[in-house]
């Protein structure tokens, strides 16, 4: 009885932590005013927000379900692998559409790969803008 109560409190605690971080991420997404700073908000939700919710799920299935549940570790691993890729692609689109400050040139090569338009396509992008 006592153990069940402790487990309930733990689950509630981790649910709260996850919910708070998800809320802060959403507030950040609404509050910031250019697309590059906005991109920072979802990377937060994807890590600690979802992580805390998954910890709550693991504790719950251990205390009330049928023993250890390890699916959550897999969800975490897949999130950690896929989140940076989507963030990278959004950033690339922002740079390509020039809706942010133009980044400074790289120190070791000539230009960034997104801004590196092949010779044959340069004419096309010029006419598109005009």
């Amino acid at each position, binding site marked *: 009885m006592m153990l069940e109560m402790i487990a309930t409190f733990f689950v509630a605690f981790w649910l709260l932590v996850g919910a708070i*971080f998800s809320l*802060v*991420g959403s*507030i*950040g997404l609404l*509050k*910031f*005013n*250019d697309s*590059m*700073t906005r*991109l*920072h*908000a979802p*990377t*937060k939700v*994807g*890590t*600690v927000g979802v992580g805390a919710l998954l910890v709550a799920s693991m504790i719950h299935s251990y205390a009330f379900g049928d023993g250890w*549940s*390890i*699916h959550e*570790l*897999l969800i975490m*691993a897949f999130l*950690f*692998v896929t*989140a*940076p890729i989507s*963030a*990278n692609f959004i*950033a*690339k689109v*922002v*740079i390509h559409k020039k809706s942010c*400050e133009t*980044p*400074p*040139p*790289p*120190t*070791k*090569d*000539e*230009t*960034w*790969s*997104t801004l*590196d338009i092949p010779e044959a396509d340069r004419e096309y992008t010029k006419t598109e803008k005009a």
Partner: protein
Amino acid sequence: MIKAFRWLLPHPFLTLLLTVVWVLLQNSVTSGMVVFGLILGIIIPRATAVWWPDRPLNFRLIPMIPYVLLVMWDILIANVQVAWIVLTRPNSKLRPAWVVIPLDLKQPEAISILAGTITLTPGTVSADLSNEGHSLLVHALDAPNPDEVRDQIKDRYERRLKEIFV
């Protein structure tokens, strides 16, 4: 003997990883599932070996463990810092900045792990790679001093990754 082993297990680490993922997907550790996972772990790398001809051969697993723990700790700390910035700092006082990081790492796998680490730690997002792959473009949410961010990433993550991918 060694040749046959190489042919059967072109990527021993991938075999191990696939087995572990299969067992995790089943959500229960039984000997049948482990054996089936091992079979999958042998067949899949063998069948897809054509598509990764130049994998990093010298990859060390042991220094990877403290690296993963360090990154998880940093994610926790940075999350709290960024949450504080989101809630208390008005937009006008925010100083976002581009940070250019010259890379010493050569292997594409090492660079993608570094880029992933940078994105996962809140406050920084890796945005682009230079056309020859020797510099990394990072956007920082609040960086009054971009050089400091660059030095921190180079010292904290890249130095450790250089020890993992020798």
